[in-house]
């Protein structure tokens, strides 16, 4: 420990060079932090998902409608507590940019399955009793100054049977999702209303969402649902919430591969940069190191000093980069829905920095170990 100040002083021996290398390392770790942060934020969302929520869709693909007629059979599968259909209509308020997606559901079952959607029970009952009611998300309600009792005119993208795309709803409730900053953007309406008015896909649903009676039973319940429809003309595939999210993400792109490739290139370049600069720095300080050895510093201690210097510097710079990444991620929180920088990204980033430092400084440190005092001083 007492050698820390010595190593620290060694780092700042050539101030401008150190600052530049620091910035180079910090920018690499900024990128690392952002990419890995995003990536593991997605994985966290998967891990946080509720395993007892089961999504029943067509075995062909999610998005291929399945008949409403399956509902009673799903409800009768042992272990299913609640089940709701879900259909989604993209829609907008006064301007096309003011999107308020509509979810057509069975209100009581839906809010029972999603207790994180906070709404007074009386409002759910009101929606059940008012066919053209809507429980609006808190975000659009706040943004457009809408409150309970207002009429809400909306334009949907899917035409009604009469060809029009204009709808009007009574706002009977407002829900909020405290656990997700931008979760409360949609409007919840009665499935029956949307279904009866729409032109295409009548009496079908995009998927059913079922709640299993316990997380432990969920896999068995999920298998039982699919078994009930096996070899029927409407085979289903039931996924837990986590499976659903990960398969949706996988569809978008192979994020792991892209992130891995970028980070690989960044660190390769960085390894060379730190290595070369450490070499240069040790070369310039050969006489100083020789003097240390003359004072009685052992060969090994000189080597450790060089390593320590590299480790201190790399970890310090990496911490700056990772810190910046956390700030950027938390600023972009509302955009990407990740609450904070996952701690494992910070830890793995610092470990990478450590490995980088040791790999980059191993050659210079070896030189320090082998340094012959007489020769080194003779060069002077």
């Amino acid at each position, binding site marked *: 420990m007492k050698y820390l100040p010595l190593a620290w002083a060694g780092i700042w021996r050539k101030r401008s060079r150190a600052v530049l*290398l620091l910035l180079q390392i910090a920018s690499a770790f900024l990128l690392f932090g952002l990419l890995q942060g995003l990536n593991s934020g997605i994985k966290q969302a998967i891990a946080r998902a509720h395993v007892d929520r089961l999504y029943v869709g067509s075995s062909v*693909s999610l998005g291929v409608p399945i008949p409403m007629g399956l509902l009673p059979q799903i409800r009768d599968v042992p272990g299913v507590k609640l089940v709701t259909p879900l259909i989604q209509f993209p829609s907008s308020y006064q301007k096309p940019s003011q999107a308020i997606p509509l979810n057509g559901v069975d209100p009581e079952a839906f809010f029972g399955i999603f207790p994180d959607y906070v709404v007074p029970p009386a409002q759910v009952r009101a929606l059940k009793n008012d066919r053209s009611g809507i429980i609006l998300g808190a975000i659009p309600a706040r943004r457009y100054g809408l409150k309970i009792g207002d009429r809400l005119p909306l334009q949907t993208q899917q035409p009604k049977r009469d060809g029009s795309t204009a709808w009007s709803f009574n706002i009977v409730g407002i829900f909020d999702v405290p656990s997700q900053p931008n979760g409360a953007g949609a409007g919840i309406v009665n499935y029956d209303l949307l279904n009866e008015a729409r032109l295409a896909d009548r009496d079908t649903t995009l998927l059913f969402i079922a709640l299993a009676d316990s997380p432990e039973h969920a896999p068995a319940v999920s298998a039982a649902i699919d078994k009930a429809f096996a070899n029927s003309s409407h085979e289903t595939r039931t996924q837990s919430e986590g499976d659903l999210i990960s398969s949706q993400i996988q569809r978008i792109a192979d994020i792991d591969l892209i992130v891995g490739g970028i980070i690989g290139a960044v660190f390769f*370049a960085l390894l060379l940069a730190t290595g070369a600069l450490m070499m240069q720095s040790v070369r310039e300080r050969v006489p100083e190191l020789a003097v240390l050895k003359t004072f009685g510093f052992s060969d090994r201690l000189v080597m450790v000093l060089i390593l320590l210097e590299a480790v201190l510097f790399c970890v310090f710079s990496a911490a700056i980069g990772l810190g910046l990444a956390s700030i950027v991620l938390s600023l972009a929180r509302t955009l990407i829905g990740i609450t904070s920088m996952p701690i494992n990204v910070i830890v793995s980033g610092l470990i990478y920095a450590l490995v980088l430092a040791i790999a980059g400084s191993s050659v210079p440190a070896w030189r320090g170990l082998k340094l012959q005092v007489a020769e080194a001083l003779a060069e002077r």
Partner: protein
Amino acid sequence: MTFLKQTIALTGAGLRSIGERRGSSFVTLISVTAAVGVLTSLLAIREGANIFNGDNARSDVVDVISRGATSTPQSVVTRDTLSVIESAPGVKRSPDGKPYVAASTFVSVDAIKKNGKTGNVYLVGFSPGAALVQSNVRIIEGRQYRPGLHEVTVSEPIRKMYRNMNIGDHLVLLRTEWTIVGVFAGNDSIGDSVLRADADAVMSAFNRTTFQAAQVQLESPSAFGKFKDALTSNPAVSVEVRTLSQSMKDNFGQLTSLLNFVAYFVGTVMAVGAVFGALNSLYASVDARRREIATLRAIGFSGGPIVVSVLIEGMLLSLPGAFLGALVAWALFNGNVVDVSGLIFKLTVTPHLLQISILWALAIGLIGGSFPALRASGLPVATALRAS
């Protein structure tokens, strides 16, 4: 003239000394290569996705979807609407009077990639008019699907990327067995991302009664106004008429701008890192020649050529990185097939991307050279000469 001569002399001296700074020069080269390589690779994805931006779309083809739908999946086109479209003015007709109208219906289908991951492709049912409108789509292996039968043709990229997509393989969807009978190529739009089949077969297998979109070939691009007015003023139908290029922009514009953003964001952060590397290398170059530069200043060389020579050195140092980076991206990725959100395209490293990489490398060299150049020109002659 002296300015030029002095610049050349100074640049030469700087370049000769690169050999003495092999380490840091090499590092600069590698940082620039890495930054440019990643930027080019990411842009190659966008370049591949550019087939969706509509710029090359045929101007005589229009898309018809239901009013209010922002993209094809939300659209509904009934058979009644289709017959109104088919009889609208401006639609091209074959000698025997058949309209050039291809109606289609889409089904998203999960499929397993060769690497074991799940992806999705679209099974698209086309009405017989597709043979007229999309005459550029041709069968390169096997044969065409037959109307009314559960037969499909696949694109070459889909066959390459997914399991069980060869001719003779079967696809079981909702207890219906579909046979792959051929491989097609040559579609200029989203064609490579789909399985093609007959619309009636798809609609009966998936209990559908409506199409989702219609593609119409006009007599000429100038018939667009006539065709559009006839449909939009007809109270019996509620549709939106867009040129093919507009509809592709609407459908995929977001994707292309997202890919652009990711590529330039990552490329910028990496370039910033490379700038610091270049700064370090060039500071070292200037530092190593302090006395030399001071001597030159003392015998009458002016500051301008010194600045310019350092900047040139910086750009020459980073320029090979541009070619190397583009080359690495090309060697690793060019021609690879990727899919983003179920859309399949080939990564392409184009000459345009090489231009972009050269620009970035020059910018890195220029910024990396700027501060060292100023330091060199501002060296107090007396102190520098006295320094050891």
